[in-house]
């Protein structure tokens, strides 16, 4: 198998995730796009691990999965708190810091 196939798939997923983070308004959908980005990184890690015959790629992919779980937990708690305070999870309306 070509290494480049996996890397390009990761790049497509990463760019889709970047588009989602920039273009979405709903807080939950922004977090989903972040998940796409983290999965793109994981594909790259595992592909390079198989390419270099080292186990480190898989180990770091597992660490990224654990950190993604923590990120989603805290992120959804924050979105929930924003919803409770403002009755909306539109991230474009959170502009208290705007001068």
């Amino acid at each position, binding site marked *: 198998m070509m290494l480049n196939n996996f890397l390009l798939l990761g790049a497509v997923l990463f760019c889709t995730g970047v588009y989602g983070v920039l273009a979405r308004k709903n807080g*939950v959908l922004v977090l989903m796009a972040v998940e796409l980005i983290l999965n793109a990184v994981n594909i790259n890690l595992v592909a390079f691990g198989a390419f270099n015959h080292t*186990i480190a790629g898989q180990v770091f992919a597992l660490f990224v999965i654990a950190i993604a*779980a923590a990120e989603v937990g805290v992120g959804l708690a924050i979105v929930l708190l924003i919803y409770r305070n403002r009755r909306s999870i539109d991230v474009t309306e959170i502009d208290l810091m705007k001068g």
Partner: protein
Amino acid sequence: MVAQNIAFGVIAAAMVISAVRVVTAKNVVRAALYLIIVLAGVAAQYILLAAEFTAIVQVLIYIGAIIVLFLFGIMLTRAPIGQEGDLDNDQRWLAGLVALLLFGVLAYVLNDAFNGAQIRLNVPQTTAQVGDSIFGAYLLPFEVVSVLLLAALVGAIVLARRD
């Protein structure tokens, strides 16, 4: 090798289409369901790369736990379940431009650096090796991740409880 390449192509096409639907769907629940296809496709790619333990962890953690968390988040923030028009902000075209430029740069660099590099899976990477690595060379990062998960757990409870 040919069968692996065909499997890669089919799964990758399904993943890319679903990923685009995740960021363009007009319905929040549907976006979450398309995300399941992308995550399952990632697990299938891990199997193609002979990383079966990572694939199983991907299914357990992502599809089993994180998607459920997302669906709870959608329900608790009372997003309308039916058709909903206004999920994108007005930076949509700029965001698309940024994503396309980023992909152009990444594709150029990757083609430049790794053109023709082949993955050879003749040395199998077993689950035992993963365990040995985590509890050997990467023990300290593993403990740090444990503390991070605990901190995230406490933080999420503190943030989300009603007082």
